[in-house]
């Protein structure tokens, strides 16, 4: 079947099977490989995207259930001119990534947190990111990055 959704502001569609997950629809159907798959039990958060503004682990939803909705992926998070948005920049400035594999999910989860709560405490950041595993950074610098980006104009978090 053909599934259509708005991805990063553009209407996109691809042929899928009924069992196709949103993560593979994005990666294989649309060629948006920034969304990563790190597990098969919805535990690692590498696949986090936003669906209608809410953070969602894309390895757990069927693509067809997202038909017609609006999806934001890591590919839609930079500023219009291609430069890093405030949150992405904070990750670079504070060395909040190493191998980069968890990073798209971390950025998407952190952006969702800051949309909900623009001034989280360190404890709130750590608590919110519980659903995302990073095996490289020890989280120390990820937490720093999110705190550094907090309070920024939330419009700038996801430049759509």
């Amino acid at each position, binding site marked *: 079947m053909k599934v259509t959704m708005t991805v990063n502001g553009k209407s996109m569609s691809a042929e899928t*099977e009924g*069992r196709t997950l949103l993560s593979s629809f994005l*990666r*294989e159907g649309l*060629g*948006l*490989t*920034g*969304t*990563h*798959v*790190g*597990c*098969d*039990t919805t*535990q*690692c958060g*590498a696949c986090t995207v936003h669906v209608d503004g809410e953070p969602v682990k894309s390895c757990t939803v069927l693509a067809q259930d997202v038909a017609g909705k609006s999806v934001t*992926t*890591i*590919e839609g*998070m*930079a500023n219009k001119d291609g430069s*890093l948005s405030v949150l*992405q920049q904070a*990750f*670079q*400035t504070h*060395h909040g*990534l*190493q*191998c*980069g*594999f*968890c*990073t*798209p999910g971390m*950025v998407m989860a952190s952006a969702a947190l800051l949309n909900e709560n623009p001034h989280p405490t*360190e*404890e709130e*950041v*750590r*608590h919110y*990111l*519980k659903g*995302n*595993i*990073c*095996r*490289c*950074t*020890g*989280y*120390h*610098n*990820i*937490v720093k990055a999110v705190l550094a980006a907090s309070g920024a104009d939330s419009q700038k978090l996801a430049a759509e």
Partner: protein
Amino acid sequence: MPKDGGIGESTLRREDIRFLTGKGRYTADISLRGQAHACFLRSEVAHGRINGIDTSAAEEMPGVLCVLTGADFTEVGGNPTGWLVQSRDGATMKEPKRPVLAHGKVRHVGDAYAMVVAETYEQAKDACEAIVADITELPALVDLAAAAADTANRVHEEFDNNVVFDWGWIEENRAAVDAAFASAPHVTTLELVNNRLSPNAMEPRASIGDFDSGTGDYKLYTTSQNPHLTRLLISAFVMGIPENKLTVIAPDVGGGFGSKIYHYGEEAAVLAASKKINRPVKWVCDRSEAFLSDAHGRDHVTKIELATDKEGNFLAVRTETLANMGAYLSNFATCTPTFLHGTLMAGPYKTPHVYVNVKAVITNTVPVDAYRGAGRPEATYSLERVIDKAADELGIDPWEIRRKNFIDPGAFPYTTPVGLVYDTGNYHATMDKLREMSDVAGFEARAEESRKRGKLRGFGLSTWIEACGIAPSNLVGVLGCRVGLYDAATIRVNATGNISVLVGAHSHGQGHETVFAQLIAEKLGVDAKSVEIVHGDTSKIPFGMGTYGSRSLAVCGSAMMKAADKIIDKGKKIAAHMLEAAEGDIEFNDGSFSVAGTDRQKSFAEIAFSAYVPHNYPLETLEPGLEETAFYDPANFTYPAGAYGCEVEVDPETGGVDIVRFTCADDFGNVINPMIVAGQVHGGVAQGIGQALLEGVVYNEDGQLLTGSYMDYAMPRADDLPNIDVDHSCVTPCTHNPLGAKGCGEAGAIGTPPAVVNAVIDALHRAGHSHITHIDMPLTPSRVWSAING
């Protein structure tokens, strides 16, 4: 001040831009035209005899292109052991065969015995389920001691038992060690388990095989820390493809921690399948499959004894270890419990007599190999735990007992009784620094405050040393290593003066693209932005030994320095001609060549241009072009060291352990990018805390893996960890490499577990539970609670 973008500056990582915008290119992101998809069928039993495999139904399934089994690989070689260890009696170890796909027998849950290639992954997976295998289940060997003792039931029947070697280090020390123990005033004994871990790099392994029937060339894209080694193993041992006909590309790799050093059967299988169907074949591992097929780490059972005098001066150390190898010997599995473990058992201490015995045992579990630190965490854990126990028995402060036994700063180079020559170090300095950072004076007040909340506070100390950048090739060859341990770099100065550096090290999170560019910028006096680092592609890079054991900077960085020296030498010759001066009068400073004592000079870019557009050029005496390659084989390991402090709060009601403060004082020699070094320590500490408190691979007695997903294998999440206070201001530069650099990547995983466990034991002792001398990792709430209430 460091040069802009040069050594000592926390330059932001250039690779981050692509990772932060979703433009990283990991193996699973690559789609080749016409690619088919592979799925592996893996054993559900730990030990079984394969009587027959019926693939006929699977072959008829929709989309299926081919089905391969172990029978298809009997004509090719197997995945070899990279290091042959000798037993105490002089016998060479047993080397069990490890075929591409299991044939005749399956030996662990997850052992792959068939492969289906289909148009889609889902079709391949469906077809795997249609394969009918007749397998007679055999008793599983899971318990280490039982497997070591069993000669009737054998994982590899061609051998008479399951022990592949019984290694003694150093055998000649044994009598003196035994004598020291016999006459020692005090002996402390501790038995401990170093828990089996799953490395769990966030990116699962993936491989794409691509055979070109037009040229006969093979290309393999794979998640590897070590693409040249993978090529070498596939070429020379497994498939017999000439090296020049096989390209191995490891693009962006999402973490490795050791688990992607080795060659795995899936890599050979996708190449064979690609040739068979004449299309690219892609395989992407899922996480449950990764638990069953990625090499695990650690898994030692050790008895350690420490002999001291009444004042706590160390007289001798003696250990006996059973090391679990799993069902096959992964490439470097044998060197981890031996040369990376036994040789570190002196630690930073002047213990006069040390003897280490290791028996390596084959069991029906996933093969074990090097995982972050590899052998050194095991050595450090045993030693730092027994020292705390000895301090307790002797009534000596844990800081004091370590301090009095440290090798003195003036004693270097220092030869340990286990065969290493530490070139430099200052263990007192890192421990003093740690003491300052830990606010020891304020501890009692903090403990009192914890008590008020019903919590038990404890402090744990560990000091650590490691041997990084394993070397030199001559020595490791004598010890049984089948490869050399040098590295290589090519510096290609392009005609317009920008520079490509082709390096044999491989980055999978360490920031090489940034750090190596900093090195070249500083050395050649150019802007770091004009330097590009190329890695991970055997068709571009002359050779390389990859990244593991914290070797990239000390070994590959040194090769880069050597190549840069050659560039400067050639540049001087060109400049001498252009400036009409004697070569000996040319000086190279800050990116320009000048005649000593004059203002006549040529910039780096002018020299490069002249080399490539050789119009006014001494062609009779000098070749055009400006490109140099160097291979560097280190004279010795490097020996970073440090001291770690961990403060915990234990909840006596639940047994839960909360790390409230973690402090690291390290000596990594000269540091190129402090930001990246701190990040490496954070990551290592997180994995060390994971081992100490959360992680552990668990098999049941039938060899079924009980921790087979992220639902049941616990890893640290953001709220399990504290902020980590890192200092690397104590510096004793390495004396034998041109950078004075040591290694930092594994430090956290080495120094942390004993600090955490020492802290928990300390908390329990302070609360009056002085009979609890040890709890095995991971210190889960139930284990701690049982210790308190048991």
